[in-house]
């Protein structure tokens, strides 16, 4: 199975078993902020953030051999308003349901959701979410503006769409984006005044992922801790046994087993490096009641790798994991994280890994 690796200096493809596991990248030199392999038709999409010339969107229908530029998601111009919004980053791309050919979702900074129904040829702002009253409470975390980084399309009903927002909690639509509710109850933020700690609209879920076989079960690596939901993202329970820390960015949900998920803990939050200089992955196989530390094949010397929120992925079998770091290391595990194999330690900083 191919693995797409979006980095600060281009989009790489890793082909396990090849003599050259990491080939020449597409978009050499350009930051690739998101990649999507659309399993419905095999199309690839790549979002770029050119340092000087803004965010861009490209599409490939030949597996990345050639690319064509598409219009990127953009706000309409607001006449007479000097501070009108402009998309600075396409942070995540997701495909719609099987019965929605051509449907794509894009989450951006500032925190907006865009929809395409023509394979990315055109994009429309999801105005109902942009106009959600609680959006005024959202704020930036890491970036100056809030952003949508997680888009979950329910495999049982494509009209149910969920967004994870930093910092804006979780929003859910049951009607294909026509209306939204602000949720994320149970999260507790330790970066606001105590009486505001449970306010859903100011939570910072770094990443939200669902079990494909049972999408009611979701996992969240939050800024302040690790959480699990069993009701589709409305209510969350803290997993207090997470170790060696409760801070991190990435989470991977087992596609078939709702009791299993992986996290990559770090030191919160002023330093953002591995705990005690030791990069590890934590795994729970009992719904978050306990966690085990996985480190076979990961650095034994002091490590300063950070795994960004989109840089941990799992394949459809639930056995093969991939993980890329800010210092350009890429690992793959083919046995659920028990052992990790270094694929490259010479990549640019990794923004996303994604199994095709």
């Amino acid at each position, binding site marked *: 199975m191919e693995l797409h690796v979006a980095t600060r200096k281009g989009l790489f493809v890793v082909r396990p078993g090849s003599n050259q596991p990491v080939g020449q990248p597409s978009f050499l030199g350009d930051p690739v902020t998101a990649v999507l392999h659309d399993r419905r038709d095999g199309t690839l999409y790549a979002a770029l953030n050119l340092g000087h010339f*803004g965010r861009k969107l490209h599409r490939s229908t030949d597996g990345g051999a050639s690319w064509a530029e598409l219009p990127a998601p953009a*706000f309409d111009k607001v006449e007479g308003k000097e501070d009108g919004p402009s998309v600075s980053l396409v942070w995540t791309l997701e495909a719609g349901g099987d019965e929605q050919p051509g449907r794509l979702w894009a989450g951006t900074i500032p925190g907006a959701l865009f929809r395409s129904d023509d394979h990315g040829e055109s994009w429309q702002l999801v105005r109902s979410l942009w106009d959600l009253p609680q959006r005024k409470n959202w704020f930036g975390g890491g970036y100056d503006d809030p952003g949508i980084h997680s888009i979950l399309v329910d495999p049982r009903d494509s009209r149910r769409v969920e967004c994870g927002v930093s910092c804006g909690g979780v929003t859910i639509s049951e009607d294909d984006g026509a209306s939204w509710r602000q949720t994320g109850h149970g999260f507790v933020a330790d970066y606001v005044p105590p009486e505001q700690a449970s306010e859903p609209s100011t939570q910072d879920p770094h990443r939200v992922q669902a079990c494909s076989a049972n999408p009611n079960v979701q996992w969240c690596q939050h800024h302040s801790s690790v959480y699990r939901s069993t009701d589709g993202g409305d209510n969350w329970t803290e997993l207090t046994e997470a170790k060696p820390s409760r801070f991190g960015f990435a989470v991977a949900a087992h596609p078939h087993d709702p009791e299993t998920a992986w996290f990559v803990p770090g030191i919160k939050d002023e330093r953002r490096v591995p705990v005690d200089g030791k990069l590890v992955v934590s795994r729970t196989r009992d719904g978050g009641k306990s966690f085990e530390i996985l480190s076979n094949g990961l650095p034994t010397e002091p490590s300063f790798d950070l795994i960004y929120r989109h840089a941990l992925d799992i394949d459809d079998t639930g056995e093969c994991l991939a993980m890329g770091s800010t210092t350009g290391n890429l690992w793959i595990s083919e046995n659920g994280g028990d052992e990790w194999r270094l694929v490259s330690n010479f990549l640019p900083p990794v923004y996303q890994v994604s199994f095709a």
Partner: protein
Amino acid sequence: MVHVEFTPHLSRFLACPPLDVEGPTVRAALDAVFSERPALKSYLVDDQDRLRKHVVLYVNDRPIGDRIGLSDGLSDGDRLFVFQALSGG
């Protein structure tokens, strides 16, 4: 006519040979450029038509004074240079 030239950096992404346009201001000249080359627009201005932060414009030998309104006047024979700023890359 105003003669408009572009940083070679842009040619990595799309063809950008120089061109001559009519325009009494920088804004008008850029609008004329975008009218001829719509794909170029999103590279130089954002969703609200503001000049991108890391794009810099010169009229002849001077950077423009009004980066927000792009109101700097242009005269027949002026040269408008579109560069990338030495930042943001």
